């Protein structure tokens, strides 16, 4: 087919109302977070000693870490939703939570005797973490993928993986208030593994649903 003929078909198809992608994604985020919150309240709820725990550095570090991971993932995802994205500088911010986590681990190794390292790392219930974070992330990830379909990402799998990362970060915020394990050794081991699961699912969903 000649290109001029092809253009005739394109020009006959009327233009849809322009959309504001940022707003769509923000709305999806709200819906997803409400879904996560509902699951959290239904199935988990805050741990009983949360008031005491909130006064410890270890407990608070879990939230700082999760937020430091969720925010750059989310912003990066938002950029990649457009084809002319320039993500480079923003991608560097993704390193921040890992530096923070590593620093926490180093301090923990200094102040906790070696004999306790392993029990701190394994915590009370590591498998619970691996299951709960992806479960809480699911509503956010699903909502983000639906909203991203309106976008034009050139790298569908990567964009989906970042949506998975953002959803895992948000899920970790909820989960952290419920989980009794605060040691950075636990957090640095199991949270990233749970995040990887979410990113993997996000990448697959991105490949499947975000290609255009």
């Amino acid at each position, binding site marked *: *087919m*000649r*290109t*001029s*003929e*092809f*253009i*005739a*078909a*394109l*020009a*006959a*198809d*009327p*233009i*849809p*109302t*322009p*959309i504001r*992608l940022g707003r769509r994604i923000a709305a999806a985020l709200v819906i997803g977070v409400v879904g996560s919150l509902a699951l959290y309240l239904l199935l988990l709820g805050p741990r009983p000693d949360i008031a005491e725990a909130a006064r410890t550095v270890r407990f608070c570090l879990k939230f700082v870490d999760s937020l430091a991971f969720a925010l750059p993932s989310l912003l990066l995802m938002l950029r990649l939703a*457009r*084809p*002319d*994205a320039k993500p480079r500088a923003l991608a560097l911010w993704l390193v921040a939570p890992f530096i923070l986590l590593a620093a926490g681990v180093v301090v923990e190794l200094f102040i906790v005797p070696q004999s306790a390292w392993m029990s701190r790392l394994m915590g009370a219930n590591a498998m619970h973490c691996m299951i709960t974070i992806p479960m809480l992330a699911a509503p956010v990830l699903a909502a983000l993928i639906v909203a991203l379909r*309106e*976008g*034009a990402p*050139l790298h569908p799998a990567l964009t989906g993986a970042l949506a998975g990362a953002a959803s895992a970060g948000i899920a970790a915020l909820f989960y952290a208030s419920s989980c009794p394990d605060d040691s950075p050794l636990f957090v640095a081991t199991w949270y990233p593994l749970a995040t990887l699961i979410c990113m993997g699912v996000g990448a697959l969903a991105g490949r499947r649903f975000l*290609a*255009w």
Partner: protein
Amino acid sequence: MKAQPIKGPLDDPWSRMMTASIAGDDGAYRRLLEDIGRSVRAMARAAFTRARVGDADIEDAVQETLLAIHLKRHTWDSGQKLAPWVHAIARHKIVDALRRRGRRKVEPLENFEEFLAAPEAEDPHALSDARKLLETLAPRQRDIVRSISLDGQSIAATAKRLSMSEVAVRVALHRALKSLGAAWRRSVG
């Protein structure tokens, strides 16, 4: 209808034409696609030459880019220039086209300004595979796309011939174009 001078006046012609298209100026849209097609063609030819593949698939790359732009035109952020947006999509589609020809390592093309300045007119004998891809569409959709593109019929004339409403023809055309995009993507493998 004339383009409204919106906030943050973008003075480049493409952004102006796209703004006019969104406001309902079909002529501006057609001119814009033809204009973009000429620049993408120059860009594709440069990439194909550098990768040492023949120029058989150039019109495919051009049309696939135009279709991608078409399907996502409503998501263009009117506060940004259109050219970098077009360039990113074109580069991506050209790389896809080269991969289809078995080129693994494809260097990105960065100097889009060059191709903007040196557009290449369409060779009336160069055909794309779109006709082959049309075969994958549902018969009614195929008929509508053919009628409007190959036969140069209007929506109204097509609707009359198929005894459909114009709205139904437009809906079918839109679905057909979306399926065509998916078919093209699948052919990348």
